[in-house]
């Protein structure tokens, strides 16, 4: 079992697997529409010049979301 942490806390180039998405309503819907659902692997590609938003790599595409939106997503880091 790896360590769990919030997506916001992940560093650049770090990989993790989504464990839960707690967002509801429109935000929750948008996050899920984009394929951010449990068991998806994500990698932090980088952050915007002012550290927010964050760019994420999913398996075969790239998306970005704000830090306060990333707060709703918990990831599990692969065992160290």
């Amino acid at each position, binding site marked *: 079992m790896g360590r769990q942490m919030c997506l916001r806390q992940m560093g650049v180039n770090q990989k993790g697997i989504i464990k839960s*998405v707690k967002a509801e309503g429109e935000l929750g*819907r948008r*996050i899920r529409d984009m394929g951010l659902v449990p068991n998806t692997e994500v990698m932090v590609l980088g952050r915007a*010049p002012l550290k927010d938003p964050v760019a994420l790599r999913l398996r075969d595409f790239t*998306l970005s979301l704000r830090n306060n939106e990333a707060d709703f997503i918990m990831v599990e880091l692969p065992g160290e």
Partner: protein
Amino acid sequence: MTQMLNIALAGNPNAGKTTMFNALTGARQSVGNYPGVTVEKRVGFVTHNGLKLNVVDLPGTYSLTAYSQEELVARDYLVKERPQVVIDIVDANSLDRNLYLGVQFMELGIPLVLALNMMDEVRKSGKGIDTRKLSRLLDMPVVETVARAGVGKTRLLEEAVAYAEARGGSWKPLTISYGPDLDPALLDMAALIEQEKFLTDLYPARWLALKFLEGDIQIRNLAETVGGVGRKLSEIVQKTEKHCRATLDTTPEAIIADYRYGFIASVTKQVVTTETDQQDRIAVSDKIDRVLTHRILGPSLMLGVLYGMFLVTFTIGDIPMGWVESFFAWLGGAAAELLPEGLLRSMVVDGIIGGVGGVLGFVPLIMIMFLGISFLEDSGYMARMAYMMDRVLRIFGLHGCSVMPFIVSGGIPGGCAVPGVMGTRTLRSPKEKLATLLTLPFMPCGAKVPVFLLLGAAFFEGAAAQVLFWITIGSWITALLVSWVLRNTVIRGEATPFVMELPPYRLPTLKGVCIHTWERAWQYIKKAGTIILAISILIWAAMTFPTLPQEKTDAIREQREAVQIRLNSVEEPDQAPLQAEITRLENRAAEAALKNSFAGRIGAGLESITRWAGFDWRVNVALVGGFAAKEVIVSTLGTVYSLGAVDAEDTEGLSKRLQKDPHWNRLRAVSLIIFVMLYAPCFVTVVAMSRESTWKWALFSVAYTTILAFSLSVAVYQVGQMLWS
């Protein structure tokens, strides 16, 4: 026999849907709006084997919820118009995510053909997709395409037509299992819906049940109107929600999404094969991003791109703009020769040709601007700009994508609010878009700049450039602060989620960019011929009627004739002063005529209020005229100061005249600068705004900007007077 077949194109944004639409229909398309919303409706016409096809390009969406206008429009179109077949354009590079929308179409049951687009990239990246197997698993035709090159488009049409005929309009909803926690509830609800025939003429029962569980606002509102069934359905939903919360700490809609993705994965696992390092395509894009969104390089390059685009637009745009202007000047001259002197000539030359000509002069500008915008959008760079700017603009309730419209409108002095307003279309968040629309007219557009330069030269000698600089800074600050205020009052509400795809960089297709540009220009030209023509005539009339009473014009004409007689009798060297005398008389006549007109009377009538800001009737008339176009301010000031109509490019005489006028001083100049900087957008902008939002918001923008401008001018003028007198 010719038959009509309705085909709808659907798909994710950036999946190449519009490219495919252009490839299929070429230039035979028309653009309008869906009734009641500002979402564009594109319809194209194709003849295929003697069959007339009506192709509708639905807005690009990721899902079919009721959250955004685009999604509502797309789904309402499907259930109400019931096209015979839907073509779902998917980006085969990210099949899983793209199928999320496709699965929702399948659950709706509408005849669906899948177009696996960008197959060239897929193959290049070493991936394989077993199309035949996919078609068998999903039970629908699947066609491989490369929309950019038009590959597969004929087969796509053939398959779509054949499938539409085979299905004969029947809908076959797909049933996916949503697990032990939801399936029983879904079954109960579907049975209830079936039994009560609630909306079953439009939607399949299970789909309605699903939407209920997902918390779909549109369907729930509809259910409330029918009473009994609605209540029973809500009870089941509440029970299920409570159960999910208690046992799984989640919501039904999250479970639904998980199962949908699960279903998709079970399909794609069987058809997609990845051989080697399949990250090729995005790997290149990632490398570019490392430079283009770099912490320091990124913003600098962005400024460079924005500035470069601005420069190109307004320097290159100037050339064809000059042609259009000379053409209308020639047309005006020709009309003046043909028509006898009098009101008709004045209306045709000054009202119609002058007004419409001035407006059409923007067309080259709009075209070049949109060439740039479409290029940035289609290449994927626009998304990066939004990504980099979002943190700053979000503070003011705006969106990263707001930066472009601001710059175009004059964020770098000299822009134009009209293409800026039209450029807000790239904003997909309604509240942020409205805040951008309402504040971008504060930017110092090219037509306001001459006013600032005139006043700067007259009252801040040698510092006109600094004046312009501070005006630009002031405009930005005002726009951002006002946007913040608006987002906390009239357009209050949570920020729209940002979650946005950063599509891989691609070279835009020439065809796509050209069609897009031409569409915008054409929309604008159509407006110029109708509503703008009408308003031009109205403004002309306000500045012409009522004409001076006969005895006054006669008196001026007599004076002029007397001078003319003297002029004819003297020799060459003595003619100059007499010539000047004639000009002076003509200018004075123009001033008297303007003062007597409605506009002049409005100006005089407003003087009792506007003197609080230091404006007399002359300034008022110029400002009223400025509503037609801000260029008019300078030329009208020329007329009211008896200098004849002054060319906005050459204001030295007027600036000297104001400098010497005892009525004018620095404080008055500052007050006027503030007012011109902020007051009502010109009516062409207002018309464009009404198209992007509603007439109500467009008129609101006229009112609130004018009130704000006037209050600030009065404040500055009054405080200034107290301090310096």
